[in-house]
């Protein structure tokens, strides 16, 4: 029921957050976050829209600077490093963004092989590697297409190929199933599971889908009012009696989290 407490300093996890705070214009979005992600674990963060899940991700990835607290990756604080060192260390993470965030100006294979090309691999070799990874996500023969020509599901899979092409140890998924049809959701879920089993990666996922939580997670954290409200192993989800947590996993509008609706059905006219 209370936020998880970790013993200070010595990190147990491959990713370790210690007392992380972040506010925007005086509004607390993250309020004393402590969590540890163990090596090889699949950790899913759930929470209402606007709870600060993406902000949490961005802090871990070094895209936002927390106001207070420490974030250690592989036992090392990245914020104090010079930019070049940070960028070098980024090669151990792969990120699948919510909208895939493919580079519009580059063809698919150059998107996928972006890091390899930056590391100085020559064109034919990088292209071959990209083609292999694309085939692995079920997209052969699209190397020379431009991202604008792809459907949402294809973009997600190309984004996934780009995230794993350089063989990272830690993978971040930001709402990997958002905006996909049920079949494509299952395809992506399967890929995520296969990646986990074959490559022994650690992953941190933001998700709204309880199906994904049940199929893919080892542990779950619920972010609520800026704190880690609950953290538990997957098999404890259904035995939880916390009303807020239950409301979330059952997906009900009524419960301890209050939503106010306009009393009249002509609310649109009022605005």
């Amino acid at each position, binding site marked *: 029921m209370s936020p998880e407490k970790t013993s200070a300093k010595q990190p147990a996890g491959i990713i370790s957050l210690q007392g992380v705070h972040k506010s925007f214009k005086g509004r607390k979005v993250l309020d004393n976050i402590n969590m540890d992600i163990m090596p090889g674990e699949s950790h899913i963060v759930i929470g209402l829209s606007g709870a600060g899940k993406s902000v949490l991700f961005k802090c871990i990835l070094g895209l936002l600077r927390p106001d207070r607290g420490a974030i250690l990756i592989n036992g090392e604080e990245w914020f104090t490093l010079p930019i070049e060192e940070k960028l070098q260390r*980024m090669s151990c993470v792969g990120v699948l963004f919510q909208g895939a965030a493919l580079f519009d100006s580059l063809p698919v294979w150059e998107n996928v092989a972006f890091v390899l090309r930056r590391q100085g691999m020559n064109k034919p070799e990088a292209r071959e590697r990209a083609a292999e990874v694309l085939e692995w996500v079920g997209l052969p023969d699209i190397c020379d297409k431009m991202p604008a020509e792809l459907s949402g599901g294809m973009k997600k899979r190309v984004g996934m190929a780009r995230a794993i092409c350089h063989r990272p140890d830690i993978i971040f998924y930001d709402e990997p199933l958002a905006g996909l049809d049920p079949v494509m959701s299952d395809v992506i879920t399967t890929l995520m599971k296969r990646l986990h089993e074959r490559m022994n990666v650690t992953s941190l996922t933001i998700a709204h889908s309880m199906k994904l939580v049940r199929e893919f997670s080892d542990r779950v954290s619920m972010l609520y009012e800026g704190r880690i409200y609950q953290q538990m192993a997957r098999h404890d989800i259904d035995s939880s009696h916390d009303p807020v947590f239950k409301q979330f996993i059952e997906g009900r509008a009524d419960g301890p989290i209050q939503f106010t609706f306009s009393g009249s059905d002509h609310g649109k006219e009022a605005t």
Partner: protein
Amino acid sequence: MYFLEAIGDAVQRLAYALGLYPLLAGKVIVRLRKPPWFFPLIIEQCEMVGVQSLPVVLLTAVFTGMVLALQSWVAFHRFGAESMIATIVSLSMLRELGPVLVGLMVAGRVGASFAAELGAMRVSEQIDALWTLSTDPVRYLVIPRVLAAMLMMPLLVLLADAIGMAGGYVISVYALDQNPHTYITNSYDYLELIDLYSGLFKAMVFGTIIGLVSCAEGYYCAGGAGGVGKATTRAVVVSAMSILIADYILTAWIFK
């Protein structure tokens, strides 16, 4: 009350925006001292800037040169000093109209596209993605654009100067019946090198302003597609205003 609030709001926004330009400028300067510099991207951006600007710049220059000749003729005809038209045209083009008008056109054309491109990349998380793919977005996106604007502006202005003077020549010789030989001699005889150099130096400064302002607007863009539109408009307006202000300051400084 509402009026005061609006002013306060505007001042706050201005302070916020003015903080972003130096912030990005600082990041650019820090990174310029060490590789990687991404030369192919710089060349690519130079091409883009050139291709995008050439038509508008040439058109602007030729009509400016023509109208300058026409208007000076009206004035100088009253004193019987038509021979001065050539000098007026070349001097105004080199020192003032070339850099300022090209600057304004490039702000509208290139500045808008810088802000829109980077803004779209920001809101679709492509800039964040670059970072996670071990690539510094300032080096990869901002520096090539700023350098391209800075390097291409003097070239465009040089071209505009030539075309503008040619436009003035055509009008003076074919429409206003001036002697072609005297016109050409008068174009050059009263010029000093500083007239040319000051214009090209201004062009470089204006190019840097356009690059930095537009890239900062795009790079720090927020608020979805609407935010990109606003950033693009602000990039053009702020670049254009800054060019006019910088022009006065530079002129006062160079010719003091």
